[in-house]
């Protein structure tokens, strides 16, 4: 039973590591601010979700599990707010995103 939980944790950590490394590569590789926000969003959602899931499998049921879930909830609620504030301020300072615009832009 312990071995199975260890293997599940290992898989979760592997997917999470892959997610944050790809997100960090995207943060370097993509061309402008609005595209980089997507890569940062990948770090915030995919990375943290899988790492916290792996740690939950490792602890079982205790107060530590509740604290891990609380970290997940905080990041889950605060990550879109920071992304939106950054994007909104970049638009207010008259940076236009690359690529085509469809229809009327606000």
């Amino acid at each position: 039973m312990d071995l199975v939980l260890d293997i599940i944790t290992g898989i979760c950590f592997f997917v999470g590591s892959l997610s944050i490394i790809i997100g960090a590569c995207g943060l370097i590789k993509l061309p402008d601010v609005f595209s980089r926000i997507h890569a940062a969003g990948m770090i915030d959602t995919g990375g943290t979700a899988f790492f916290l899931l792996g740690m939950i499998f490792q602890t079982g049921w205790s107060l530590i599990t509740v604290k891990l879930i609380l970290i997940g909830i905080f990041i889950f609620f605060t990550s879109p707010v920071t992304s939106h504030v950054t994007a909104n301020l970049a638009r207010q300072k008259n940076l236009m995103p690359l690529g085509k615009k469809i229809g009327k832009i606000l």
Partner: protein
Amino acid sequence: MFLAALIACAISGILVLIRIVLGKTTFDRVLGVNSLGTIIVIGIALHGFYSNRPEFLDIAIVYALINFIGTVAVLKLFSTGSLGELKK
């Protein structure tokens, strides 16, 4: 296993730092600092498990909240030039 995950966190932290140094505009840097904060939260939690001291999770929770407030405060300062006025 925890050590490997910590090494992955370190690698992506270094990649994000490269973007913070290179970044053209302020928004790139703020975005990079926010992502670095998220990676550090994961790293603190992993380090707590690695050294068998789960009390580190409290520090991770506080770091997540401070990270959010710091990012929004820096963006507000950059946008309006002040952090709010005193009401008379």
